[in-house]
């Protein structure tokens, strides 16, 4: 085993010689592949359900929720095992993970905004046909009557 130096900055190597990291890589690869296969299976299930015109919307939403959770699980395995974040010092992990909490606000705020935008448009567009039909009609036929 060759001795490696890290410019004096690093106190201990991230991987001890002769450990079981190959086994861990293999295990993670299998987990990621299985999760992807399950996701694909669920995606196919959604596709099949869409073929039936009166499919259950709430069930499709539930399946989509499961797929999103599975993807977050994949993200966890990639970051903690493949990127070795799980092996770092806790303080360092926190400098990465804590700023990511901004996403909680980011996602809620902007998806909420999207829904509100749709609701407002659907509420006001039918009540204000002139404004919304002007684009299609020649100018002299539009306007208030």
């Amino acid at each position, binding site marked *: *085993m060759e001795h*490696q*130096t*890290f*410019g004096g900055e690093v106190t*201990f190597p991230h991987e001890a010689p002769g450990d079981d990291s190959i086994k861990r890589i293999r295990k993670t690869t299998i987990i990621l592949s299985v999760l992807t296969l399950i996701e694909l299976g669920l995606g196919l299930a959604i596709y099949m359900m*869409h073929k039936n015109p009166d499919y259950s919307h709430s069930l499709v939403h539930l399946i989509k929720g499961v797929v999103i959770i599975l993807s977050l699980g994949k993200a966890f395995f*990639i970051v903690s095992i493949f990127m070795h974040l799980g092996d770092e010092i806790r303080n*360092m992990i926190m400098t990465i993970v804590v700023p990511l909490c901004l996403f909680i606000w980011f996602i809620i705020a*902007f998806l909420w905004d999207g829904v509100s935008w749709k609701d407002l448009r659907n509420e006001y567009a039918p009540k204000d046909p002139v404004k919304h039909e002007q684009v299609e009609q020649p100018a002299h036929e539009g306007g208030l009557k």
Partner: protein
Amino acid sequence: MANAAAAANTKWWSGGKSPFNLEYGKLMMWYFLMSDTFTFGALLITYGTVRMSSDSWPDPNHVFQSFPLLGSGLPLLFVSLMTFILIVSSVTMVLAVHEGHHGNKKGVIKWMIWTILGGLAFLSCQAWEWTHLHHEGAWWGSNPFPNADGTVSKSNFSDLFFTITGFHGFHVFSGVVINIIVTIMAWKGVFERRGHYLMIEKIGLYWHFVDLVWVFVFLFFYLV
């Protein structure tokens, strides 16, 4: 848990060593990736906002249903191939980093070459998909695919698809270029002279991040 024990017995902030037990460049790669996470996050959340604000949206199984030489009517198949290519190239990158830990130059070069090939295969798939969609009339500003409820759609779907997969593809492309550069450096013995293969670890972090972003692009564009 040897690491945890060592961490408990070390005065990390007394100077003379990295308090995070990380080399400077690697730490900065982590912070770069965090900023890139927010860039991709902003793009994907834009997609979410626009999609939420639309009454209906094109069905991905209708849009992405072709496979080269096999024709159409095959939803999910091509994107599964792309996803597996990227996962496998992530695994080969982990193996390159692992060989680097042991200072094994030949192993590093072998696994880096596989990683580069995986990246090139992914880019080829993406090139095929873009060409195919372009032939069907999709591009920035034009979207031939109707909404799932049968109404005429706006160009939002194409705009977001080409922007986000394009930005991700650009990351893959940069990753392949950097992978080629560090593989040549490894082959020339640069890291051997340095005494460590930390550069492989740093580009490895970037490469895994690109795979990670694809997990979410795949999720939001193709699955849900």
